[in-house]
């Protein structure tokens, strides 16, 4: 399966979906003008991957920020990952900046909504 890779922009995240290498990641900022438009290829890719997933799927959520429009799409992604758990050992690594209590809270809440193992990983503040 062809990997889906998108470089980050100021308002859209870095996307790495590479089944062969076993890398599944969203990172940086997500506040696109049209969230549905941006995430449609991502969701399509995961839907395709779900047909024949790897034995293990570790999804790295490394977003620094996402807006509410993106949150609707992220939940769709998490629900899709949940749906393939009988075929793959799926887990979510939820990264958040140590000082970002809102991102930590969202991670905790999503881990309650989504029936998958979540690991919440704080990123320490960088020293300047």
């Amino acid at each position, binding site marked *: 399966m062809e990997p889906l890779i998108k470089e980050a922009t*100021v*308002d859209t995240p870095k996307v790495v979906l590479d089944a062969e290498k076993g890398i599944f990641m969203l990172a940086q900022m997500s*506040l696109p*003008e049209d*969230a*549905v438009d941006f995430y449609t290829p991502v969701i399509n890719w995961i839907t395709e991957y779900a047909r024949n997933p790897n034995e293990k799927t570790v999804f790295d959520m490394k977003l620094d*920020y996402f*807006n*509410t*429009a993106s*949150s*609707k799409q992220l*939940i*769709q992604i998490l629900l899709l990952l949940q749906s393939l758990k009988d075929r793959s050992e799926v887990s979510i690594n939820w990264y958040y*900046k140590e*000082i*970002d*209590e*809102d*991102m930590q809270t969202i991670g905790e*809440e999503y881990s309650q*909504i989504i029936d998958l193992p979540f690991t919440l990983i704080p990123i320490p*503040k960088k020293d300047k």
Partner: protein
Amino acid sequence: MNQPIDFIYRHFSDIEKDDMEYIYRGEITPVIVMDILDFAKNNLAKAEDTKKLKTRIYYIMGEGLQNITRHQADSSDGDTDKEAIIVIHKKARKYIIATGNLMLKSEEAALRRKLEYINHLDASGLKEFSQKIRNDTKITAKGGASLGLIEMAKRSGNKLDYLIQSVDENLSYFYLTTEIETSGTNEQKSQEGGYSIKQLIEDHENFNKNNYTLSFKGDFNQENLLSLLSILKSGMNETPTRIKLYAVMVELLQNIVKHADNIDGTADWRAGVFYICESEENFALLAGNYIRKKYSEALAERINRLNAMDYKALTKEYNKILLNSEANDPVSTGLGFIDIRRKTGTQIEFSMREVNSDTDFFIIKTTVNKIN
């Protein structure tokens, strides 16, 4: 709501397509200057004027802003009233760049002399003077000699309008406006509003009185939204407060980008107004736009309903909408407002004012308490 809606509306109501006004008050650093220039560039890119004119405007803005970073005096007493102010104003065919900054009283006489000299020169005189200064190797310690001011006068084609007000025994406040000559007949131009020193001082007083640090009035689109956010990022270190402020600002601004109505029914731009106020305890964000009357009541009801909910009820509502795959537009479902309520823990204030039989002007205000 402390800020009277009538006041905000008065400053907003004359807005037309391609008009804009951006005001920043605060510490002016080279990074902030770059952000403001980027912001101006985004707006200029869309205007219909010629490339030559755009370059000229961009150049004058750069000179004006750098003039502040080079020459501003440091009050170092933490009094925000003494901070610099920058205004970029575009109305119809008039572009105005206006600045205000603190200066040493001891330098006042020399600056006045310089400005008077520049203002009495005609185009060829300015050209000569500019060359003379360029060839002179004696540049002042602060850099630039008076070249910045000469270039502003030369390229704008207009006199530099200024006013110097005494602050205390050592300091003065220097206001400067530069109007940039554009195409159009003199008759057309005289009918169009400008931006005078008087208005600049009024705006400055208003910013000081209400603790505004930034305002933007104009077309709300994703590019402007990103520029406003980037100014926030450059102006503040990354703290829990800034993270919250950023998130709330995105939701408020995208709400205008996606849903603001225009008074004339056009849909190719979104007129809106946005303010950031800062006090010792909190930040307040104000956003205003037109809304069709038929939606006003439902919006007011929705905000009132969310204001009445506690954190637990808000979370329940949030998750319900999140998991409802039918409700794909988070703005119309109110997800943004719920997010704001949850993140700030404060009420969303709002106010409406009738504009005509089918349009209201609507402003909302959210408060982000500072986290220590």
